[in-house]
């Protein structure tokens, strides 16, 4: 049976969504999540982005890529957090988030790499460890670079 927006909202409208339960909606929820990520409610958009990351669909990446372009910091934070849930996070998406002007986004994407290391990013993270404007980010990047290939 197709998933409706009402079903998606029933999960995401909660103050404390049960994300694993919501992920059971499956790939049919992705178009609704994309719509919410593009909507005007940043709290809902952030929840939608994170939920998309938990649904193991080849369309989840597109939702996170859209979220990573949001003008709302909290939506980009959710995209950065969602990266840790993807089976194969696209390197361009991670690169975008590593370059984000908001230090919170950079922190969260680095934490995601700590949880779910991705190949091919060691040099990039080492560069951040040397050059980021923020001392906390430099320290965090240094720790994480050591674990990357």
């Amino acid at each position, binding site marked *: 049976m197709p998933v409706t927006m009402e079903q998606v909202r029933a999960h995401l409208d909660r*103050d404390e969504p049960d994300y694993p339960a919501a992920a059971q909606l499956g790939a049919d929820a992705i178009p609704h999540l994309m719509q919410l990520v593009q909507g005007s409610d940043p709290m809902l958009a952030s929840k939608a982005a994170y939920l998309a990351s938990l649904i193991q669909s080849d369309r989840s990446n597109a939702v996170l890529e859209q979220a990573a372009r949001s003008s709302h910091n909290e939506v980009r*934070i959710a995209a950065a957090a969602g990266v840790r849930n993807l089976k194969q996070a696209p390197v361009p998406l991670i690169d975008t988030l590593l370059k984000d002007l908001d230090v919170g986004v950079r922190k969260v994407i680095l934490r995601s790499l700590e949880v779910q290391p991705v190949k091919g990013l060691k040099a990039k993270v080492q560069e951040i460890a040397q050059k980021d404007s923020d001392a906390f980010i430099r320290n965090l990047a240094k720790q994480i670079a050591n674990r990357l290939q």
Partner: protein
Amino acid sequence: MLSLRDSGKVVGRLVSIRQLARQCNLPFPLSLRQFIRAPGCPFPQCTRLHIKVLTNSNIPIETMLNDMREVYSTAGIRVEVVSREILTGPNFTFLNDLDVGACTMGSTTAEQYQLYENRNFVGANEVVVYFVRSTVPPFNGCAAFPAGRPGAVVAQGATQWTLGHEVGHVLGLVRVDDNNRLMTGNGTAKITKPPPDLVASEVSTMLGSNLTVPC
């Protein structure tokens, strides 16, 4: 001395000064100092909050407090704000998008542990509420706290009822499937017929909590 606002003694619609005096068995004209200091008045029990702000919420904190007080007053509980603190600086920048994991009572992340170490001015049996920019994963709020440090986190995009709802969890309340009630698990934005209700069993739980103390 607490301000009248932070004392939580005036809730809901404005009442006359004479009515306030009568409620508290105090003489009229009413002395503000006497009114604020009068124990057990107008409610016998208090929940004492400490507000610590990393990021201001979109709904003003005063609105959330007033709404929380309106609901808690139905349980005979006064919500007193004992202290307010703004948490700034590099140490807090990195806690402003707080990792809360699954937001499970009894289980906290390293970041939650670090944030909840900030307990300036907090006494025994008092609750701290941290206002942050976001949580990771995204929640309106999270009431999981490290042992011995009762408190909750409220995100910037929370609703007007999230504060009361999360502190409700801290006092031992669980989610319900009823949008007329504060503890609705369906989303406090869906609360119908505000102010939302507390039922008798919830009031008992709140009054039985060690975080609800005689005023």
